[in-house]
């Protein structure tokens, strides 16, 4: 969600500044981002002053010290533990969601059969999955993996089904006319048309999956960012809780911006030239 808002603001900015230089537009964009952060930190600082208790709402400075401490301590180990689970869960989601989506997109019969369970699965709150995963696996590596897989799978399936429906009939006919067999059509027409949809599904559910993964770690893990948040909470270390949350958000954004978006741009290089036919 935050991402789409940011995207639309960026587009508005871009459109308003067609006549100015691209470099100027970029500078202004960054300036706004920095300004946003400053305002946020300023408000937080005022709020902390008003609360007047570092134990209940620590000031930005105090939390910043904590962040530095965590970074020097074991942040990377914890971060790595979390990310491995999220990625493993995602992998499972794509592995199961893709064939389900392919079936749904392929025939009315399967679509009717699978549509409601998938939609229901997609609208169950993440907390439910976190609890379920804990009940099934107890404190384990697999709990968060299961929760992430369950939350992300419907998104992948629905997007793949959507992508299947969008496969261009005319390109399939062209392939038939030139004697391409079903395997070739699947590989060279169906997969490339569906792939952007798979990716959109992954991006959409990524932040959700992260949140659920972390939530599951809160009670079903002995490692990872979620577990660290709980540990600091039990020690009544509010600066620690907030520092971990901040680091969590920051790295989620960084991964999204610098890995997912870049990967998408690179994979779908051809899309930048696509026009309406």
């Amino acid at each position, binding site marked *: 969600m935050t991402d789409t808002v940011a995207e639309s603001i960026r587009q508005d900015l871009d459109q308003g500044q067609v006549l100015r230089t691209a470099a100027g537009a970029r500078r202004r964009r960054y300036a706004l981002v920095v300004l946003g952060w400053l305002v946020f930190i300023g408000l937080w600082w005022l709020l902390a002053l008003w609360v007047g208790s570092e134990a209940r709402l620590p000031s930005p400075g105090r939390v910043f010290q904590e962040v530095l401490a965590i970074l020097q301590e074991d942040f990377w180990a914890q971060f790595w533990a979390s990310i491995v689970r999220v990625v493993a869960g995602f992998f499972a989601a794509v592995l199961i969601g893709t064939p389900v989506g392919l079936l749904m997109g392929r025939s009315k019969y399967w679509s009717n059969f699978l549509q409601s369970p998938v939609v229901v699965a997609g609208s169950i709150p993440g907390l439910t999955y976190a609890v379920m995963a804990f009940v099934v696996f107890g404190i384990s590596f697999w709990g968060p993996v299961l929760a992430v897989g369950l939350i992300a799978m419907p998104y992948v399936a629905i997007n793949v089904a959507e992508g299947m429906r969008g496969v261009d009939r*005319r*390109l399939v*006919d*062209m*392939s*038939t*006319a*030139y*004697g*391409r067999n079903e395997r070739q059509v699947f590989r*060279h*027409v169906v997969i*490339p048309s569906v792939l952007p949809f798979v990716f959109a599904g992954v991006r959409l559910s990524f932040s959700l999956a992260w949140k659920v993964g972390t939530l599951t770690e809160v009670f079903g893990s002995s490692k990872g960012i979620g577990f660290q948040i709980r540990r600091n909470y039990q020690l009544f270390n509010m600066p620690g809780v907030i520092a971990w949350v901040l680091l969590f958000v920051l790295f989620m954004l960084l991964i999204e911006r610098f890995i997912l978006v870049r990967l998408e741009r690179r994979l*779908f*290089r*051809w*899309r*930048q*030239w*696509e*026009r309406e*036919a």
Partner: protein
Amino acid sequence: MAQVVIKRLTKTFPPPTKGGDPVVAIGDISLEVEGNVFASIVGPSGCGKSTLLNILSGVETPTSGTVSVTESGRPAHLGYVFQDARLLPWRTVMDNMLYVRDDGEAGETRATRYLDMVGLSHTHDMFPGQLSGGMQQRVGIARAFSVEPDLLLMDEPFSHLDAITARSLRDHLQELWSATRKTVLFVTHDVVEAVQLSDRIIVLAPGGRIFDDITIDLPHPRRATDPKVATLQAEILGRFEEMHPAPAPA
């Protein structure tokens, strides 16, 4: 040089609305086309021209009747140029050429040759989205020639283009055809275009029946500006006038 034999072919589509009548796209066509002939199929919109080509290429199946497309006894290789370019947007121009017939180095050599012939040698590594509509259509034409088909099917390949581009591509096509002399079935509703390009014009009437079969006896390549072509165009257009008389001048 392929041999196309169509016997008592019909094609009916299910009714577009519930309880409506089925759509007769082709109502009983028998036709033979053979040898290095450029044959055009002309007729008003909806008379089943595209459907006919789709049946010949195996994209659609006949409701009744038979078609056979052979080359000295074996099934013929086909090339197909569509109304729209139908390139895979995620593949470069060269990869699009290789998609339809990939036989390694030979395929690449042929692809290069035909891209050169349509004036697109600089586009090998570009994506379709980077080309203009006319350039994409030229890739579609080069692709059809590059499979070295026994039979070339073309479905109104120039109708989406502006008049100037279309005219230059027609001249291109005349050059290409004169050099290769494939069997061609060329669908159009432009009589003037048909006369410039074809040795034979098969006229379809609404309801998918053959209305007329005209032979054009002029040497190739023919240019649009050739006065002999212009004279024949006027004469044949006149025949169509008789079929659909123009309103008398007031």
